[in-house]
């Protein structure tokens, strides 16, 4: 067990996610590699976001949601009774589909998360470091006191990434982080992800097949069971295998654009 735990950043074991009686995601077993980018792809409504949000317990905010099975971070089940979801989210950051900076200054957007997480060091340094880490520093260094809403959508999304890395998480979840952005901003986010994976493990949900092929090292293909409407991972492998010689016919049809 132990060597396995050190090998993977996070893993799921027989993970099923329910909304009330409805089993939205069924029996997922994934081992996410450390400091790699893992993409979750699949047609709309197959539970990609639900699965992603299970990793940092964001589904807790949906009343009646619950899980069966385990998500293991360094061998600890994140859904154990004694686990504090607030602490889980401090270790596993998240970037959302639409940029959602706080209605605060650019500086405060970064500093706030660090402060509530008990950061005691030099805040100016941390803000600069985080903004540099998100490739945003040069664009905003002269207007740190300005509202984050003055930034463009792409800049706001990079600010949200900077905000996430300021609390130094182990894993960053990205829920279609570029789907609301123009192609140039998208490209910048994708380049940034390549930088980030030197220090972080990234799991990204994307609708964009080319994006998954471009940025990710591993890809999990999700699909719905026809009868129960539950989503599950049908194939999980290195990205080049998923996109060139997938084992499952449905994966091949999907990645080649024949359906979905």
């Amino acid at each position, binding site marked *: 067990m132990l060597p396995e735990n050190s090998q993977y950043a996070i893993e799921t074991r027989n993970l099923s996610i329910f909304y009330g009686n409805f089993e939205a995601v069924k029996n997922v077993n994934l081992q996410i590699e450390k400091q790699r980018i893992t993409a979750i792809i699949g047609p709309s409504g197959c539970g990609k976001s639900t699965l992603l949000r299970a990793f940092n317990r964001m589904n807790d905010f949906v009343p009646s949601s619950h899980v069966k099975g385990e998500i293991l971070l360094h061998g600890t089940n994140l859904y154990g009774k004694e686990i504090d979801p607030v602490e889980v989210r401090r270790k596993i950051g*998240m970037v959302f589909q639409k940029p959602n900076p706080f209605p605060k200054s650019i500086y405060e957007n970064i500093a706030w998360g660090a402060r509530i997480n008990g950061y005691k060091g030099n805040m100016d340094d941390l803000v600069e470091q985080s903004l540099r880490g998100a490739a945003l520093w040069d664009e905003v260094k002269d207007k740190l006191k300005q509202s984050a809403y003055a930034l463009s959508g792409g800049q706001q999304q990079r600010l949200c990434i900077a905000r996430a890395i300021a609390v130094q998480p182990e894993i960053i979840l990205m829920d279609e982080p570029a789907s609301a952005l123009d192609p140039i901003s998208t490209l910048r986010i994708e380049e940034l992800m390549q930088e980030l994976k030197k220090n972080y493990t990234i799991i990204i949900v994307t609708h964009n097949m080319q994006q998954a092929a471009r940025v990710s090292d591993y890809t999990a293909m999700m699909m719905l069971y026809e009868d129960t409407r539950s989503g599950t991972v049908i194939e999980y492998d290195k990205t080049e295998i998923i996109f060139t010689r997938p084992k499952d016919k449905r994966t091949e049809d999907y990645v080649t654009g024949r359906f979905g």
Partner: protein
Amino acid sequence: MTTPISSDLDLSTSLQQESWAAQLKRKLRPGEVMVESSLFIVGILTIFITLAITFVLGDQALLFFADPEVSLQEFFLTTSWQPQAEQFGIWALVSATLTTSAIAISVALPLGLSAAIYLSEYANPRARAILKPVLETLAGIPTVVYGYFALLFVSPLLRSLIGTDKLGVYNMLSAGLVMGIMILPLISSMSEDALSAVPNSLREGAYAMGATRLEVSTQVLVPAAFSGIGAAVIVGIARAVGETMIVAIASGAGPKFTFNPLDSAETMTGHIARISGGDLPYGTLDYTSLFAIALMLFLITLILNLISQWIIAKFREQYE
């Protein structure tokens, strides 16, 4: 042979054109015109009523200020209001209005905002379904009931706590406290609306940073909803400034320049209510002085409304 056919075609085309023009012709819609004009009249009416009130207030107040016994300087800069002695210093009344309103808002803001945060961020649907109507019931209690509640319950309670020698039966403290309870539902429901209007994406973003519910509520949502909460506070203050019955019953009769909550003093509204209740000869200085006070009240609430609009415009967040 081709010509008639072609002329037939021309005819049918031009007929068709005519019928298109007829179809698209502007139609009379009497119902539409009626609704539009009655809405217009109603809109004009509200403006007219406001202007009429301002005119009556201004007209009578002008008579007051035109009197040789009264000077603007005395009105705005002195602190004794004794119509019998022909002393008209508005501050004797404004001080009590400000004191009771300040007490009211310092009760209603923390309680109302806490209630709003609880209802919007903490309460489960069942607790909400019970608590919200209960809170709203507070808004439905007649102010005369609040007034006697202040005089017959709160005031004796405070006197037994503070000491009957220090606190009289009539005092601004109990009137202000009860007024705070009265405006609490207003503040809480307006603040709750403002908090609920904050997009969920901000909540998610904050929680995803590892923030606790309290951190999210107080450090992200309240600042984000600041314009709405600020407006709620201003509307609450305006409500307290204009409130009459509670202060008329519980804070005492007799103008007095004081900011001490333990004192008894008469507010602007309380004074108008008491004096206009008596048989006041039309056209006397006493009579017109009431209009001058009313004009002051009108100005204060107008200024508060302007501040509230300014706050809403200045601090409104664009969440996109």
